[in-house]
């Protein structure tokens, strides 16, 4: 029972990280119709940057915020490359995000080398009845809930959030009422970068990151995003947590090496099932 609870909490915490990455993917996809293949890179960049800033003596909190802002800036740059030229087809933009991701690899190797880096998160355990829970896990869950609560309020209660939804719903009509759809897309990329950055700074204390950690993070985030139908960021929370828990259980009760295959298998199953009805990525367009 104790092992099960431990796997469960670990899975929920890691799944929250996946959900943060997925929410960034969904926001970018909704506004621009572009699947951002550089999404995992934002998390890696923020994780590596936070580790360096903490090494340089910056206090916790400030280092993570600066690292997240760096990821948001990377998101904006990715957006400029991918959709900055008006009329760029989403498929061309997708390839552009792949290019930015590969450039990110090179940049990260030149700055941080190829060795994994990490930093200490929140230390200590919290006693819950007979169980002990790492405070870092609780921090991840808390941060994720705050972020998703903020996203929900932003999209449901603010005029700017509604304008973003309008761009996703009908870009032509959005242009006709005066909304700058490309600017909104760039904002979507920036927000997506920030969400990837938050995922990076909360997950790095659990698992060291290196330049090539972006692909597993992307695959897990993408699996959570398509579990949510690439539509609602909030649904990605459920998708991410379900995936995180499933992976933790597989790693705990079966074999750790099967864990990384789970998201890929899940992606394949969902995409094949959707493609059987319609082209997979157009499902979310409806």
């Amino acid at each position: 029972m104790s092992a099960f609870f431990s796997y469960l909490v670990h899975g929920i915490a890691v799944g929250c990280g996946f959900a943060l990455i997925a929410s960034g993917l969904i926001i970018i996809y909704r506004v621009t119709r572009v699947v951002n293949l550089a999404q995992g890179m934002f998390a890696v960049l923020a994780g590596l940057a936070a580790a360096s800033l903490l090494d340089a003596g910056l206090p916790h909190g400030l280092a993570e915020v600066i690292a997240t802002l760096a990821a948001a800036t990377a998101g904006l740059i990715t957006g400029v490359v991918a959709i900055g030229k008006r009329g760029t087809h989403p498929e061309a933009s997708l390839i552009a995000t792949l290019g930015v991701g590969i450039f990110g690899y090179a940049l990260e190797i030149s700055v941080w080398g190829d060795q994994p880096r990490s930093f200490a998160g929140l230390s200590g355990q919290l006693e819950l009845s007979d169980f002990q829970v790492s405070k870092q896990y609780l921090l991840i869950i808390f941060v994720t809930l705050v972020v998703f609560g903020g996203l929900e309020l932003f999209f449901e209660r603010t005029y700017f959030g509604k304008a973003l939804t309008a761009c996703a719903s009908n870009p032509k009509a959005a242009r006709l009422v005066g909304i700058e759809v490309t600017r909104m897309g760039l904002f979507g990329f920036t927000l997506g970068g920030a969400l990837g950055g938050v995922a990076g700074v909360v997950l790095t204390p659990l698992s060291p990151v290196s330049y090539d950690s972006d692909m597993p993070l992307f695959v897990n985030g993408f699996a959570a995003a398509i579990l949510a139908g690439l539509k609602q960021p909030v649904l990605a929370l459920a998708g991410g947590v379900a995936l995180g828990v499933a992976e933790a259980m597989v790693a705990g009760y079966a074999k750790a090496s099967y864990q990384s295959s789970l998201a890929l298998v899940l992606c394949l199953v969902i995409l094949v099932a959707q493609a059987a009805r319609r082209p997979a990525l157009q499902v979310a367009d409806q």
Partner: protein
Amino acid sequence: MIAVEDVVVRYGSATALDRVSLTVGAGEMVALIGANGAGKSTLLNAISRVVPTSKGVIRIRGSFAHVPEGRQLFSDLSVDDNLRLGAFRSGDRQTAWIYELMPELERVRKQRADSLSGGQQQMVAIGRGLMARPDVIAIDEMSLGLAPKIVQAIARQLAALNESDGLGVLLVEQSARVALSLCSKAYVLESGRLVAEGASRDLANSCLVESAYLGSPLEEAT
């Protein structure tokens, strides 16, 4: 005020508009009629800068709103949100006056736009255009798919706004009967070229318009 002068729009090698000129003066109600594919929507899209022009000049004095063909609502959002987003440029997001103008929308204000009937959706689309507080509103295929009773109701509202606020209207219609009855001036577009223009009353009696767009009463009835 809108002034379109010798505008040419090309899609690749195809010419969609060929030296088209048109004006909508302040407080004027103007109809643009023509068959499907004549270039009417292209002209509106050119005025809205949605499609680029190859030649010619388009001048807009004052504010302009475009209600596109097919309503093009934000289907994920409520009626109220759709209307408020219409004010993205003007900034005045108070929707009460639209509900006064179109009381039928008030009871569905919280509903998603895609759950409405065709007539209600058309009202939302026009209401969203009006929220921009335009000097001229261009409406593409206002009557398409709507019952005559609803078309008449919307037409009455537009006429009332024209009368009270001096709203200019550019009405793009396949249904020439509706357009000519509502507007004082009309243009006839055929295969991307203007083939006739003048007072609606005169055009309604012209052989060209009568035979091509108005048909016999029997045809209209069927």
